[in-house]
């Protein structure tokens, strides 16, 4: 039997680890500025976005539970038929590709900005894409198991960073709360919600999960852990740099780590942060590219889909290079009006419609 025909098996815990890694990776790159007029309250936005994340995850997991053997693409096809379903599936596949190509660019940009400003950005892009191609070839199980090694280390590193910073925190800077009213806080949480909405991966990977009844519990746990880290990091950034200066920082968490200095011997540990970035962003790129490739295979009813990996990666490589000019352009792109509406439509609106339709269909003919 060829390896590609074996269905990969992962556990619900591994799935939730993937979700945490996805959320954490982008969060540690650019943090509190998500289009908030007043970044002092961004930690409240973080909590609100966590609530949004819980709702989206609930919808998505309920949808998966109703079609436990089908992936997102197959769900679309069964519910809406070949043409409309196919169209929606293509939207999703594009979305997966899009997320992975943006992440590739973020990866390249942060290494370029923070560490090696003279190195051409193409080098980083090519290297990460090569690594991703290799791991996607290895399949879902390999990616999830790698993540099982990377994520705990990253979480511990971030916690360590927060503990080491404790003496530099000026918590009084968090006050006054909601100085400019609640409107900017709400708009500020939109983009953050859309990142929690990346749990749209769940229906793509759900059929491969061994203990499916646990998925709801674990993915909620993943959202909560994500919210916790997001909130704490926001509080740390604001209380170290102050709200105005924090909004000016390109890479707030990186600047935060650079502030650590304990008794002149424990300092300059930002390499840890870079290691965390490389690990987490790598996992994120892999899993989204994998979802794209897998989904395309299912859409076209291909028995083997591994030959799709290289073309997909090439598209991601080229588009990631041509779509943006620099890091601030990516930041601008993640505005509530552009990215917020675009991604929340795919992550929340369409899953809701799918859920409603599936509810009626299943009643009728009980598939």
């Amino acid at each position, binding site marked *: 039997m060829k390896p590609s025909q074996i269905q990969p098996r992962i556990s619900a815990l591994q799935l939730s680890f993937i979700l945490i890694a996805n959320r954490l990776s982008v969060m540690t790159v650019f943090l509190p500025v998500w289009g908030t007029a007043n970044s002092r309250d961004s930690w409240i936005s973080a909590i609100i976005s966590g609530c949004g994340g819980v709702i989206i995850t609930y919808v998505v997991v309920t949808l998966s539970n109703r079609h436990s053997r089908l992936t997102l693409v197959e769900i679309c096809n069964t519910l809406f038929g070949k043409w409309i379903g196919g169209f929606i599936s293509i939207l999703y596949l594009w979305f997966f590709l899009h997320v992975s190509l943006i992440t590739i660019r973020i990866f390249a940009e942060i290494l370029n900005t923070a*560490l090696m400003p003279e*190195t051409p950005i193409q080098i980083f892009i090519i*290297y990460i894409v090569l690594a991703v191609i*290799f791991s996607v070839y290895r399949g879902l199980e390999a990616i999830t198991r790698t993540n099982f090694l990377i994520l705990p280390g990253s979480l511990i590193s971030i916690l360590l960073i927060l503990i080491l910073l404790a003496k530099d925190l000026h918590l009084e800077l968090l006050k*006054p709360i909601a100085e400019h009213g609640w409107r900017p806080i709400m708009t500020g949480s939109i983009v953050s919600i859309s990142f929690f909405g990346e749990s749209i991966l769940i229906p793509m990977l759900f059929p491969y999960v061994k203990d499916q009844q646990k998925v709801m519990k674990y993915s909620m746990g993943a959202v909560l852990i994500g919210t916790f880290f997001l909130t704490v990091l926001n509080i740390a950034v604001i209380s170290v740099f102050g709200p105005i200066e924090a909004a000016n920082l390109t890479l707030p968490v990186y600047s935060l780590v650079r502030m650590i200095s304990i008794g002149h011997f424990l300092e300059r540990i930002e390499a840890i942060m870079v290691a965390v970035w490389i690990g987490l962003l790598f996992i994120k790129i892999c899993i989204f590219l994998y979802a794209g490739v897998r989904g395309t295979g299912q859409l076209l009813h291909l028995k083997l889909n591994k030959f799709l990996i290289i073309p997909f990666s090439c598209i991601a490589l080229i588009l990631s290079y041509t779509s943006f000019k620099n890091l601030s352009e990516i930041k601008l792109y993640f505005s509530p009006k552009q990215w917020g509406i675009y991604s929340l439509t795919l992550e929340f609106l369409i899953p809701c419609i799918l859920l409603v339709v599936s509810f009626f269909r299943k009643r009728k003919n009980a598939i």
Partner: protein
Amino acid sequence: MKCSRFRKSLLISLLSFSCLISAGCWNRREIETLGFVIAVGIDPSQKGFLVSTQVANTAVLTKQGVMNAPNFFVYSDAGKTVFDAVRTATHSSPNKLFWSHTKVLVVGEELARKGLKPALDFFARDAEERRNFLLAVTPQRAKDIVSADVKTTTIPAVTLSELLEAYKYSSQTAYINLNDYLREQHTTISSLLPEVRLVKDQGEKVGYKVYRAAVIKKNKFVSYLTRKETRGALWVLGKVKSGIMDTKCLGKSKNSKERIAFETYKSDAKVKAQKKSGKYMINVNIKEQGNIAEASCTKNEVDPKNVKKMEKMKAKAIKKEIKASLKKAQELNTDFFGFGEVIHRSYPKDWEKIEKQWDEIFPTLKVKIKVESKITSDALIERNQQK
């Protein structure tokens, strides 16, 4: 079989490809080729800025035995911007300047009068610097401070940073890093920067002296505070870690030569804003703890009555310092206590209006000061009632 051959060829091609691109290496910097900048001094010049850097001679510092070589080099160059000046230094320095280890940034007073913002942006923006190096102002030329050959066991810049950090023993000078400075300057707060001078130290060799504080308002130098005024400000900011307060002896006249020295161990400040019939008021509440460090003249110090008296005397002395500091602040119209931010936190809705008028409100702002002082021990001597 086919599959594995495909894989093999893929692997080989990938490996050979990686050979191609990993042969050259951008941004490669060997540690021997770097010049570690430990201290920077910025002065104004006709061109723009005169940037002086003190670079550690790592070869001498690591290898023992090379006796005659200097253990640091100084490069100073002018440029229209700070970075321009820094890059001009490549004409005189064989090693590329490396900024991650910068410990101190000294600014000439003349430059501080013109405005610090253009001088500091490079340090906040560049990827190599950290925001936690210390700032200092000098009435002399920053170049002289940075290039001075001060008696030291390592290199002068390290000594300077240690001196700046030693503020906590007397609390009579300020202590601020770049990050705190930038944060404060975004608000109505005026920052306090320590003052550093070169002093003749018994003969030819010179030494550093760090004391007092310079007030910087809206990135511009305003004035110096005296040492007492500086500590007065630090009491309110809750930054007094330790220090010596001295008062006259119990029952002696004001100008008596017999004095008591109290050592402070702990201090804590609570600042609160109040609004009374449209006017703002600040309540400062200071709690201090310490012991008797030196008192040749006391009698019966274990008597609680006497202890109370001494505590009162100490509290009074602290209050006097704060009042002096407050008076100076209101004269200069510089809010280095951060009272504006306290009002901002308590009355966020009014703040938008107040912020614009803050310069008019602050000089007449009413401040109530309350000091609670405690004497926790009298070290190794306890004078009982004798004689």
